[in-house]
């Protein structure tokens, strides 16, 4: 058996320390404070959506009808949207202020009130959709597919965001709809794409968008488009847990 010499061990440790320093050289940026291998761990604080005339700002949701496209629809009009273009539903930050990465923001138990309104309000405030409020949650076991899912992960490659939001699910009227991308297990059916977006490490400003085709249930083959924007606030997984 070959034993490493004390000299060789010191050399190896030096190399590891130097390598780690090189990887984490941008320690002053928000990204690096919350990052591990460019992972942005923390809170993606959501800027509330708002409609002014035909202009839409902030975070929103819209749904593509089966056979449609992400760019041109046709989109589902939500009679409860306050926007002139009712195919978009603005979203308001929930009790946590937005989407957390590295941890779950699981739905409560029970997940609905007696009228079928979602009680999942950590990420966004439940929004009315066809008279009944929908909410968002990230769950360790997807409530629709009933399979394990990973906690949300977003990573920054320069100014570009990518990641895994497979655990994200919408709940509405006693029903659950996985709205992650990819789906739990990694599939990207139909128009499922993203997440992708932009990130400014100096300011923490981000945009994040993904689409997720519903598989099964009353809205099978409809596709949700989710657009979040706001500011990323770094944290650590431990902080997020607490």
């Amino acid at each position, binding site marked *: 058996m070959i034993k490493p010499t004390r000299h060789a061990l010191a050399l190896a440790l030096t190399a590891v320390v130097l390598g780690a320093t090189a990887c984490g050289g941008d320690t002053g940026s928000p990204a690096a404070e919350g990052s591990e291998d460019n992972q942005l761990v923390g809170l993606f604080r959501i800027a509330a959506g708002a409609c002014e005339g035909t202009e839409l700002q902030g975070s929103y949701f819209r749904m593509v009808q089966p056979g449609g496209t992400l760019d041109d629809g046709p989109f589902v009009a939500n009679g*409860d949207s306050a926007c002139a273009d009712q195919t978009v539903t603005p979203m308001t930050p929930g009790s946590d202020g937005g989407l957390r990465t590295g941890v779950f923001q699981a739905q409560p138990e029970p997940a609905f009130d007696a009228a079928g309104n979602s009680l999942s309000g950590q990420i966004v405030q439940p929004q009315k959709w066809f008279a009944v409020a929908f909410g968002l949650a990230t769950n360790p076991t997807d409530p629709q597919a009933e399979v394990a899912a990973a906690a949300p992960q977003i990573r920054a490659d320069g100014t570009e965001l990518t990641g895994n939001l497979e655990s994200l699910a919408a709940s509405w*009227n006693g029903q659950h709809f996985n709205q992650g991308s990819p789906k739990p297990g990694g599939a990207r059916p139909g128009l499922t794409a993203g997440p992708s977006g932009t990130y400014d490490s100096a300011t923490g400003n981000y945009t994040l968008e993904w689409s997720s085709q519903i598989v099964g249930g*009353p809205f099978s083959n409809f596709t949700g488009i989710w657009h979040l924007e706001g500011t990323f606030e770094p944290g650590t997984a431990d902080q997020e847990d607490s």
Partner: protein
Amino acid sequence: MAERTRRSNAAVWAALVIGLGLVAAPAVFGMFSRAPAGGQMIDEFAPYMRGGTLRSFDADLAVIDAAYKETKALPPEGSASSLATFEQQWPRIHDEMATMLSTIEANVGRFNGLRALPPFWAFPWFFVLPGLMIAGIGLWTGRSVGSQRERSRWALVVVAVSVIAAPAVFQMFGRAPAGAAMIDDFRPLMTEANIAQIQGDFLVIASAEGQLRTDVLARSAPDSLVQLPATRKFVTEWPRIAAEMAPMIGAMADNLDNFAAVDALPAFWLFPWFFVFPGLLVAALGLAARPSRPADVAPSPIPAAAPVLRSTT
């Protein structure tokens, strides 16, 4: 005498082949995957195949229809509005949904008959297990002589009679054709195109409800001359109606593949005869395998590949 022995042995081996055929049938028809799919469909449809549930849906259609008739009398809201789309499409939607509900209602009895059958996942084993018994007893009979052969031959007949009786025991002669008729009735409903149409119709109703609640009723104060009671009732009851309709649409969408699997099985009405015909054949072969005198019967020639039974005593 040799001719009689040859015929007796041939009958035994024919019974063995029929037994192996029964063992192979579920694999040939893809029953190991399709039958459980049918069972899942039966389970997931069960909440909607009840008279009370279907009458509730009928009442929901009446609520929406009353709102339609009331709002149709109002001044037009603009041709591109959700309400205009609803007013244009509701007569068709109403007709199609009412037809669908009456089709489902007409099949409640048939559905319950299917549900009363043994679990669908077990269906393949109703072929495999008797098939194995027939093949095993056939092998035993073919290798036996004298009184042992006589006993095994009668065992073959008894198993065959049990196979013949099974469809009657499970009332398959009535339930299987009823199941076939139900599959025929549901076939036009259980298509991707029809489900997409129903999903779209649901959104037409839901969008109209949104406009009625947030716009039309908001403009119509409770103390105004235009009271719109049917519209208010629709709006009030919509969350409950949606909560009932959405899971049903979901159950239909989720079971498209299960229905296709069941539809790909041989026609349901044939199933009792899949037991009766092989059973009759095996019973007849068992009886035909009777030797003139037990002592005259020689063991039948065993194929080289046949397993050798060794006594441990």
